[in-house]
C-alpha cells in the first residue's frame, strides 16, 4: 500500500468494558460503531465500507443501516482487525469505497448472543487435535512454549515477569480490568491452568468491543480528530493446528507479516516509539519481539527483564496493560489497535511522550494467523 494514503479518523471502544451482561454480541458491535462514528462526526449513511469478524458484515450493515460498496468478512481470529485495516487501506486507494467502518464486539464473559467454541469432529483439528483433550486456547496456544524455553533457556520466572511488567502499565489505565501491582511470586503462585502456565500468565475473559473508521488521507484533514496515518501493513497465515506449526520457537506468520509491514513503512526498528504485541498469553510478547526483529532469537527475555519495555524503557510495550491486564474479550486485536491510535493521538492514559510511530502486531487463533499495522501521526 501507499504510505500515509489512508488514515484513522474515528476510533472508540464500547461505552462499558469488562462485564456487560445486558448487551448482546451484535449490540457491542453497534455500541462501539456508534461511539466511533460520534468520534468522527459521521452517521451510518456516511459509511460505504464495512468490515468485521465474529459476526458477518451483512449483519453489521443491516443492523446499522449502512449500504456498503465494500464488505470484508475476513475472520482469522484476534488479528482479523489488523487485516481489515490493511484491506480497507487497499480498497480506499483502489476507489472501491471512501469510508470504512471496522467493528469488533464480543460477549466473552457473559456469552449474551454468542456462539460456541467447538470444532467439527470431521475437521482436521477435530480429527487430529480434539481427541487428545485440548480445550480452549489455554491448552493449545501454550503447547509450543516448553520447546521455546528449552531452546533458549527461558524460565517460568521470565514468563511471569511479562505479566508483572504489563500490570505496571495497567495500573496507569483507569479502564484496565486489573490494576493492582503483582510480583513474580504472585504469578508463580496463581492457579495452575496448563503447566507451565499459571492463571496470571493467561489473558482475561471479558465483554467489550471497539470500532475504527478509515478514510483517505486527503479527506482525513476535514475530520474533527487528529488523523492517524497508516504507514505500513502486513499479514500472513500459517496453520489452523498448533501441532503443525513449522517451528515451535518462532511464528512464521509473525515473521512474514512483520517484515511486510516494516518494508512497506520504510522504517527501521530504531524508528519505533511504541509497540503493541497481542498478548493472549505471557509468551506472546517474547515471540513477537523476536519475530518482528526487535530482539535476536532467545534474547527477548533479557530485553524484558532489563525493563526496556516497561514504563521509562526505550520501547514501551502493551501500554494499555494488554490482554493480560487490560481486557480480552476473545479477539483482542481491536483493543491493541485502539491503544496505538490513542498513543498516536496523544491521549493514552499512559501516554508515551512525543511518540510518532506505533507498531501494532496481532495474532489470530493459536499462532494461526498474523496481522501488523504501523501507524504514524506525521502527515
Amino acid at each position: 500500500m501507499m504510505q500515509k494514503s489512508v488514515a484513522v479518523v474515528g476510533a472508540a471502544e464500547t461505552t462499558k468494558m469488562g462485564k456487560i451482561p445486558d448487551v448482546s454480541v451484535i449490540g457491542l458491535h453497534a455500541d462501539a460503531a456508534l461511539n466511533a462514528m460520534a468520534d468522527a462526526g459521521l452517521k451510518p449513511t456516511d459509511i460505504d465500507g464495512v468490515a468485521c469478524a465474529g459476526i458477518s458484515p451483512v449483519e453489521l450493515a443491516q443492523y446499522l443501516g449502512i449500504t456498503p460498496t465494500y464488505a470484508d468478512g475476513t475472520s482469522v481470529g484476534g488479528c482479523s482487525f489488523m487485516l481489515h485495516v490493511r484491506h480497507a487501506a487497499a480498497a480506499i486507494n483502489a476507489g472501491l469505497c471512501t469510508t470504512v467502518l471496522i467493528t469488533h464486539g464480543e460477549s466473552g464473559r457473559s456469552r449474551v448472543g454468542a456462539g460456541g467454541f467447538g470444532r467439527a469432529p470431521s475437521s482436521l483439528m477435530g480429527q487430529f487435535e480434539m481427541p487428545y483433550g485440548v480445550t480452549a486456547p489455554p491448552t493449545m496456544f501454550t503447547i509450543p512454549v516448553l520447546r521455546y524455553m528449552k531452546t533458549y533457556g527461558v524460565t517460568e520466572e521470565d514468563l511471569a515477569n511479562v505479566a508483572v511488567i504489563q500490570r505496571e502499565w495497567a495500573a496507569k489505565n483507569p479502564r484496565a480490568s486489573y490494576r493492582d501491582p503483582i510480583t513474580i511470586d504472585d504469578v508463580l503462585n496463581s492457579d495452575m491452568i496448563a503447566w507451565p502456565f499459571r492463571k496470571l500468565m493467561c489473558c482475561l475473559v471479558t465483554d467489550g468491543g471497539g470500532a475504527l473508521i478509515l478514510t483517505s488521507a486527503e479527506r482525513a484533514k476535514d475530520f474533527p480528530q487528529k488523523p492517524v496515518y497508516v504507514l505500513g501493513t502486513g499479514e500472513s497465515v500459517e496453520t489452523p493446528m498448533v501441532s503443525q506449526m513449522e517451528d515451535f520457537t518462532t511464528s512464521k506468520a509473525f515473521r512474514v507479516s512483520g517484515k511486510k509491514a516494516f518494508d512497506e513503512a520504510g522504517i527501521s526498528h530504531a524508528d519505533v516509539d511504541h509497540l503493541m504485541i497481542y498478548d493472549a498469553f505471557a509468551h506472546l510478547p517474547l515471540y513477537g519481539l523476536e519475530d518482528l526483529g526487535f530482539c535476536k532469537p532467545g534474547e527477548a527475555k533479557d530485553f524484558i527483564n532489563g525493563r526496556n519495555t516497561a514504563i521509562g524503557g526505550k520501547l514501551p510495550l502493551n501500554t494499555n496493560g494488554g490482554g493480560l491486564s487490560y481486557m480480552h474479550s476473545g479477539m483482542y486485536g481491536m483493543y491493541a489497535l485502539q491503544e496505538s491510535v490513542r498513543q498516536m493521538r496523544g491521549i493514552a492514559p499512559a501516554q508515551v511522550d512525543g511518540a510518532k510511530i506505533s507498531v501494532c502486531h496481532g495474532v489470530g487463533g493459536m499462532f494461526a494467523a498474523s496481522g501488523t499495522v504501523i501507524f504514524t501521526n506525521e502527515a
Partner: protein
Amino acid sequence: MPPRILPEPTPETQHFWDGTRNGELLLQRCKETGEAYFPPRPFAPKTGSRNVEVFKASGRATLYSYVINHRPRPDMGTEPYAIAVVQLEEGPRMMTNIVGCPQTPEALVLDMPLEVVFEKMSDTITLPFFQPAKG
C-alpha cells in the same frame, strides 16, 4: 463421564483411521521428493503433486513439546493430563497423549524417546498414543 470426543474420518483421512484400527501408524509421502507429511491429504503440500503414497511409519518418535492440562475436559476424567506434540522419526509431528508414565514435568522430559501404542475407543476409532520407548 461423557463419552470421549472422537474423530469423524473423511474420505481423505479414512486410510489413517483404518490403519490405527489395524495397529499401524500410516503416513504419506510425495513420490517425487520422498518427503513425508501429516495430516493426511491426497497431495503433497508445497509441491502440490498428487503423486503420493501411503506408508507405514516406524512408530518411533521423540517428545517435542507439551502442556499438562490441570482443568480436564469432562470426557478426559478428573486428573491432569499431558497434551503433547511428538516428533515422528519420519519428519512430521502430531498431537497425542503420552501414556504409561506419570503426567508430571519430572516424568515428561523433552526429547525423550517414545513409541506408538494403539487404544481402541470405539468400533471404528482407535487412537494412536505414545509411551516411553522400551528398547
